[in-house]
């Protein structure tokens, strides 16, 4: 590793932190949009991990993986936002606590 470069463990720590933030956001946020954004944050944390490991292993495979993750995340966003619109039309709310027509 060259002098002055940020060691890769820092990137891994950062991505672990981002992933945890995503998980926590998913669990505690009440707005469906924010919950959805938390998932995107988790996926981007994974992307950072992949790039870091690809750099460590000098393997391009990890970077290719990132492209596929981004592509799938885009597809998921299209479907997810469409479902959000459908639910807003049907219920008039995006609050998690009010989407409770079905319960245990």
């Amino acid at each position: 590793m060259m002098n002055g470069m940020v060691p890769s463990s820092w990137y891994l720590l950062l991505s672990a932190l981002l992933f945890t933030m995503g998980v926590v956001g998913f669990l505690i946020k009440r707005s469906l949009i924010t919950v959805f954004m938390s998932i995107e944050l988790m996926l981007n944390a994974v992307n950072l991990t992949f790039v870091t490991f690809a750099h460590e292993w000098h393997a391009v495979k990890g970077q290719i993986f990132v492209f596929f993750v981004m592509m799938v995340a885009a597809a998921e966003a299209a479907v997810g936002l469409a479902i959000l619109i459908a639910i807003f039309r049907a219920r008039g709310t995006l609050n998690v606590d009010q989407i409770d027509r079905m319960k245990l």
Partner: protein
Amino acid sequence: MTPDVLRILPEVVLTVTGVLVMLADASMARAASRRSLGWLAALGVVGALCASVWQLALPAGTAFYNTVQTDAFSVFFHVVVCGIVLAAVLLSIDTLPADQHHLGEYFALMVFGAVGMCLLSSAVELLVVFIALEISSISTYVLAGYRKQTAKGPEAAIKYFLLGSFATGFLLYGIAMIFGATGTTQITEIASLIPAARSHSLVLLSFALLMVGVLFKVSAAPFHVWTPDVYEGAPSPVVALMSTAPKAGAFAVLIRLLYGAYPTLHTIWLPLLWMVAVLSMTVGNLAALRQTNVKRMLAYSSIAHAGYLLAAFAGVGLQGIAAASFYVAAYAAMNVGIFALITVAGGYEEKRALIGDFRGLVYRSPLVGGLMLFFLISLVGIPFTGGFFAKFYSFSTAMQGGAGWLVLIGLVNSGVAAAYYLRFALSVARPAASGTHAGETPRLGLAVSLAVGLAAIATLALGILPGHVLDAAHAAAQSFAAISGF
């Protein structure tokens, strides 16, 4: 040398069919009936089924730079998935309102979803596993919310979508970890590189995260909470599909991961899976006991069935793979059958959704009622049905694996399960109370008859002549062993 494209021939056939369905859909008048598109989709699925069986003639091997593998194992699961999708498409042709202009997209999504579910069983590279999982999931997210005007439809879709994506996040992080530990994401290479991994804790972490992702997809406890809500809100033909086909694919991935990528960790994953099996059976059956909605009851029962299936993993090695594969086939046959009949008897709008609403079904339509009883008997696990032999092989495999207590818990659970299945069966068989509206007589159209007939014949055949399928399951396990060197 086999051309690469032949190794994904069923997927190619399905993709082309889906595109054709969408093109034909676009060229039709808005008000035109779209039933013919359903038949086109069904034809394509039959084509994919034939292509999968034809793949048996190919020598087992990989294609596309070791990312896709065809062997008896992948063919077994391809046939199961194609059979399920065929039944679900046929079921939808007759039971969905034909005047909806979304119907073409519905059939296309089913076929596109099938591409992912099929690909799951032949993927040996985690990148392909991930993409296949997403193809199958994204299609089913949309299908789950197909009745978007209802209050429950979009709710089911959003719950499935959010929790599914959440689980995918864990799966991906697990893939990233194993890539960090070994520098590869190819399943066979992972197995050989794990002993030389740079960090054993990274391997363990990757395994745990991958399990979260996969166990969510098979709706095993404690990752099952989405199941009842999604099954209740989604249209019944879609539930017939998504309670079986994506699970079949996910179980194939689970087997490939456990026996292909992590065989060296089996001292860790065996007790883990036993715990998940016991938890799934118990939670599923106890919760099913107190349900009044039929689809919710069957959702919890499907969680319990995931538990019985996981018990087969106690018999480590080829026996376990064979028993689990057999269980997937039997579970698929009887679950598709019962959901098909619930669609027929309950109607698309699901005005009859509670257990009591099915009262007197045998008298209104002896055929529908009788078949319903037959599938319930199979779900209970009474001899001469697929359900019995599946449970029998699963439990006897667990017994040979030295997990007697697991079998004991499984048998107690089967007794509990019999209580709620029989409660429903009694409701179906009892004459309707006098003075109440008897309800209309359910009608079986040609396509529905074909779907139900397919499921009934499969369930019966698995119960009376399980030999052929069991041989196929053993061949599947065998071919698997030859390549991954278990």
